[in-house]
């Protein structure tokens, strides 16, 4: 059940990314291009995703525990520290350069768009670069 529910949630997340256009780098770049040909439509995606997850978290976290797990696993860090800000700034630059973030990039694996493979290979390299550079978070 645990694996089935993860599969269903993955499909649901992927459908959201596909239908909203998050999976399309051209759409993301147009969303970020506020001084050029700005396409603000992804704002609707962001706001509705937040509305659903805001209510969803309140409903789900009111439970004692998840359905298929002994306890909830939530982030425990609260400090707004340098790695958080520097990492986010670097991520943002990469998002702007490519028009892809990790979820949509992985979701697009089977769509046979060669530039996406270049991105994915480089993303894994970037993760390894971080993990082996000794600066652990």
């Amino acid at each position, binding site marked *: 059940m645990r694996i089935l529910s993860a599969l269903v949630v993955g499909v649901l997340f992927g459908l959201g990314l596909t239908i909203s256009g998050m999976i399309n780098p051209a759409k993301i770049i147009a969303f970020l291009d506020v001084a050029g040909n700005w396409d603000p439509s992804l704002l609707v995606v962001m706001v509705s995703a937040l509305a659903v997850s805001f209510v969803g978290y309140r409903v789900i976290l009111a439970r004692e525990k998840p359905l298929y797990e002994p306890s909830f696993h939530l982030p425990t860090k609260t400090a707004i520290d340098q790695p958080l*800000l520097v990492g986010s700034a670097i991520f943002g630059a990469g998002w702007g350069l490519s028009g892809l973030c990790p979820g949509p990039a992985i979701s697009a694996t089977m769509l046979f768009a060669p530039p996406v493979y270049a991105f994915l290979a480089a993303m894994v390299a970037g993760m390894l670069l*971080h993990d082996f550079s000794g600066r652990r978070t």
Partner: protein
Amino acid sequence: MAPLKGEGRADFSWRLAFVAGLVVAPLLFALFSGAPVAVSTPHPVWMMALGGIFVGYGTRLGSGCTSGHGVCGVARLSRRSLAATVMFMASAIATVFVVHQLFGF
């Protein structure tokens, strides 16, 4: 996207199932809607690759991305995630501005 490094084998299998669902979703959509899923990449491949390195390194260092901080964290009203989201949105908008307006791509 949750990081793939799991605590054990049980963690690995559900994560794998999640990723499998994520990967088949656009195919299911194309199959049932009859419409192809648009994936067009306006920036050159070298920029995609450079972007990939930044995204991989940055999401690890900053412990999250658009889904992790932007949706899940902000929805839980995490101040940390809100700060991260403001930072990556500003950085992404600034990057596209530089790439388009200053370098003319």
